[in-house]
């Protein structure tokens, strides 16, 4: 008798393999003129900057971040593959990260897929390659595309399209936890500094995550401050400070008034989830064969 787990896994794999050609062969029904408007309600794409450049917006509502916001209209196109947008890894003196010796040592161990240290042929050790959660603050320092924010009496609820992660920011005045069990997305509290500026503190983030796509590290004492500034009805600016005395000699700005644009309230966010099954399929077809995959034993 095979161990049960092995049997179940083998069955699942066989089913996936057997069904995949069927699933892929399915085609969507043709869009008819009458249903066009209905079809367009789904999987929306943010409008181009040119459609609203120069248009005046209504004044900002007070103490209100709610809505669907898109960051892909920034200069970085929402990709940030060169690292934190305010400190990209571009060799410029003003973008030199203030590493401590330990921070620099940890940084050198990371082997990213992009940037000047991008790794070749099987050396990448980015934890995203294991379908690990992106974690905070990487969800804002890499692929910051569409987010959705809702407010309740005691929470700000934050939903992130890319990787489908959510955060709760407590606004009930509680103190940050002391020495908490680490979370991928940390523990967050927030308060309004004035009617248009919401300031969030986050602690307790798992050390396994990278800060950004080029592998800046963080420790267990990382503290992240976000400042959401509602500029007017349609525009918000997000700034973020990284404060980690074990890795960096002083706090540094990772986001500097990163622009977020309010989307239509019926904007349907496309889904992007990391699915190990789809990863495996991609890897066996392309990643492994093309030398794009990290070596199994990379740490």
């Amino acid at each position: 008798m095979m161990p049960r787990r092995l049997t179940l896994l083998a069955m699942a794999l066989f089913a996936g393999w057997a069904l995949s050609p069927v699933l892929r062969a399915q085609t969507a029904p043709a869009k008819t003129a009458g249903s066009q408007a209905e079809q367009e309600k789904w999987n929306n794409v943010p409008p181009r900057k040119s459609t609203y450049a120069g248009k005046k917006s209504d004044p900002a509502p007070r103490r209100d971040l709610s809505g669907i916001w898109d960051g892909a209209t920034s200069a970085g196109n929402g990709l940030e593959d060169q690292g934190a947008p305010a400190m990209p890894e571009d060799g410029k003196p003003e973008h030199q990260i203030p590493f401590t010796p330990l921070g620099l040592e940890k940084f050198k161990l990371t082997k990213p897929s992009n940037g000047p240290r991008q790794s070749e042929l099987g050396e990448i050790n980015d934890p995203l390659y294991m379908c690990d959660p992106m974690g905070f603050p990487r969800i804002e320092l890499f692929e910051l595309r569409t987010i959705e924010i809702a407010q309740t009496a005691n929470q700000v609820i934050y939903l992130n399209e890319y990787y489908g992660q959510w955060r709760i920011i407590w606004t009930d005045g509680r103190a940050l936890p002391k020495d908490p069990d680490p979370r991928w997305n940390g523990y967050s509290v927030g308060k309004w500094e004035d009617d248009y500026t919401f300031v969030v503190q986050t602690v307790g983030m798992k050390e396994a995550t990278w800060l950004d796509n080029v592998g800046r590290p963080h420790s267990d004492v990382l503290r992240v401050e976000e400042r959401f500034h509602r500029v007017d009805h349609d525009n918000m600016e997000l700034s973020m400070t990284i404060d980690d005395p074990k890795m960096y000699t002083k706090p540094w700005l990772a986001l500097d008034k990163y622009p977020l644009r309010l989307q239509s309230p019926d904007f349907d966010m496309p889904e992007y989830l990391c699915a190990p099954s789809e990863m495996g399929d991609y890897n066996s077809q392309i990643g492994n064969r093309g030398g794009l995959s990290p070596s199994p034993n990379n740490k």
Partner: protein
Amino acid sequence: MPPTRALMLDSGLNDKILLTEGLSPFRIALRRDGRARLSAAPRGDVEGTVRAKFAIIFLAVVVLPAVSVPLFAHHGNAAYDTTKTITLKGTVTEYTWANPHVFLKVDAKDDSGNTSHWVIEAQSTVTQNAAGWSRTTFKAGDEVTLDVIPIKNGSPIGRFKGRIVINGTVFKEGAQPAPGQ
């Protein structure tokens, strides 16, 4: 599933005990006809083997390789030869609308009539959707002409460069969305 560490113990009865991280131990029995049979190994067998035998072979294996170490999007250009453009002409055999990359399989013929089985990747479903693609943009049997950036290691793998012609019609949406849109 990431690769797993394993220990293979020689149980001395013409079979092996395999201890795999995260799974119950199991026995690999080598039959006279050369085939191997997997079965659960009771605890007593494992302990007896460890005590009795000192020849332990440590293996670093990829066990149950159905899902190998996954690759996320945004691997850089390092693996691609961005100085080259290849034009492929052929027939679509499969179109996968999934993450981390949408990809297309094409049987492409060269001038001598030889067929290569190519796999060409685009970006994520989100990005391709924004560029006007959908899961019905291609289908098996479509005749396509594609400009492709090839992978460095010579495998028939590439990335869409821009020009796409499907059954004689130029695909106007293009392969990649314009940055900063």
